[in-house]
């Protein structure tokens, strides 16, 4: 579904120098697969994820999504992004719209649904995540966990083929982490293709088909959760896991 070929990303820093953050990443994510990305801070996990939907423009390399190289300059990226949902650490819900409007805005504006259809869909989605009674509130009335639930269903309303999560629980109070992870598990059970950057090792172990360990701008190790967590081959993976697991 998503194939990444020799993906490189340099950031120009404020002092003018160039920082190589992705140093040639190759990866293929298949339809229905659940891939989690783990690794130390600054290793390039977010940058990798954000390159998948061109939120960061790759310096070089290809990102092939459903057969099209979306890193190509001539492509209408907006069209392809409709098929890729993204959930951020900081929720990024729209504070000036009601909960329901947050969900209906894009499908209606992009002509995917009529207003009635979008309304109906929004209510279904809100019911599914227990926010039905908040439909007409503004997001400032919601807790962090509720905001993140809203952000997830907002992305789902576009009927994406893949969902990208960048540390969806890192900004949450501990007691709300579980509810968000449960919603993601539900999605996975429904067969959604997911790429999830996370620091929740237990969760990664439980839900992943494959785990990517990212460090210093490359995928240093990749394999099933058993392989990566129980039998890591790369010394850097071992070191990282020994720090986060105990």
């Amino acid at each position, binding site marked *: 579904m998503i194939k990444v070929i020799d993906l490189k990303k340099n950031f120009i820093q404020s002092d003018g120098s160039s920082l190589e953050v992705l140093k040639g990443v190759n990866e293929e994510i298949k339809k229905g697969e659940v891939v989690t990305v783990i690794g130390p801070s600054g290793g390039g996990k977010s940058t990798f994820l954000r390159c998948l*939907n061109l*939120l960061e423009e790759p310096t070089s390399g290809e990102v092939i999504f459903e057969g099209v190289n979306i890193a190509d300059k001539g492509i209408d990226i*907006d*069209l392809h*992004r*409709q098929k*890729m*949902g*993204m959930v*951020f650490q*900081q929720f*990024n*819900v*729209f*504070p*000036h719209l009601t909960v329901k409007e947050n969900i209906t*805005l*894009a499908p209606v*504006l*992009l002509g995917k649904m009529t207003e009635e259809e979008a309304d109906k869909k929004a209510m279904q989605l809100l019911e599914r995540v227990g926010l039905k009674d908040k439909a007409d509130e503004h997001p400032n009335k919601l807790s962090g966990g509720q905001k993140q639930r809203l*952000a997830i269903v*907002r*992305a789902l309303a*576009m009927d994406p083929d893949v969902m990208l999560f960048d540390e969806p629980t890192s900004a949450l109070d501990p007691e709300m982490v579980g509810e968000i992870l449960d919603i993601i598990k539900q999605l996975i059970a429904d067969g959604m293709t997911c790429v999830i950057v996370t620091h929740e090792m237990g969760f990664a172990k439980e839900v992943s088909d494959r785990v990517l360990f990212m460090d210093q701008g490359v995928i240093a190790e990749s394999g099933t959760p058993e392989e990566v967590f129980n039998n890591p081959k790369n010394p850097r993976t071992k070191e990282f896991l020994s720090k986060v697991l105990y």
Partner: protein
Amino acid sequence: MEFFANIVEILSKYWKVFLITGVSKTLILSIITVTCGAILGLLICLGRISKIKPLKWVLTALVAVIRGTPMLLQLYVFYFLVPKVLPFKVSEFFSIVVGLSINSACYVSEVFRSGIESVDHGQMEAGRCLGLSKRQTMQKIIIPQAIKTILPALGNEFIMIVNDTSLASTFFVGEVMTSYLIVKGITYLTFECLTIVAAIYFVLTLILTKLLGILEKRLKEND
């Protein structure tokens, strides 16, 4: 007490000068300036956040120059330059309006820009991730949130302009300060005349402040 008697006397004789040469022209000048300034200011702001590099540079330089030089000096430049560069004959009033409008447009463009920048960058990203174009995200997500910061600042700019139009008196195009020059020229009562025009400006801006306050409250209630 003679002072107040003089003021009453001046007002009873020359109120028409203050009102017609003065207040009405100041209001016209301000309204034209604010309108043109807001429209031009929006265009400048859009140009500055666009992807067209040369346009960006030119507008950034223009804003820097206008903000970095005295307004009176700018009005002199426009007063002499506008009639020279335009192929048809223009009034002095017109040249001054152009000068005031461009000056205010530059300040207003900064108001718009900082309003847009006050919106968290994550909002743009969230919009784009849903498949909205940059323009759709601006219209539906960024600008509605930026308005809250922009409107009060724009109101302040309006009040500033009312006071700034007094500089136009240098060119005798007629506004409150011009009416002061006229009446003082006849009566030689400098201090009394100054008091009157000060009161006029004060009342004008006070009314404006109140009106803008009401408007802002309305907008908040609509939230």
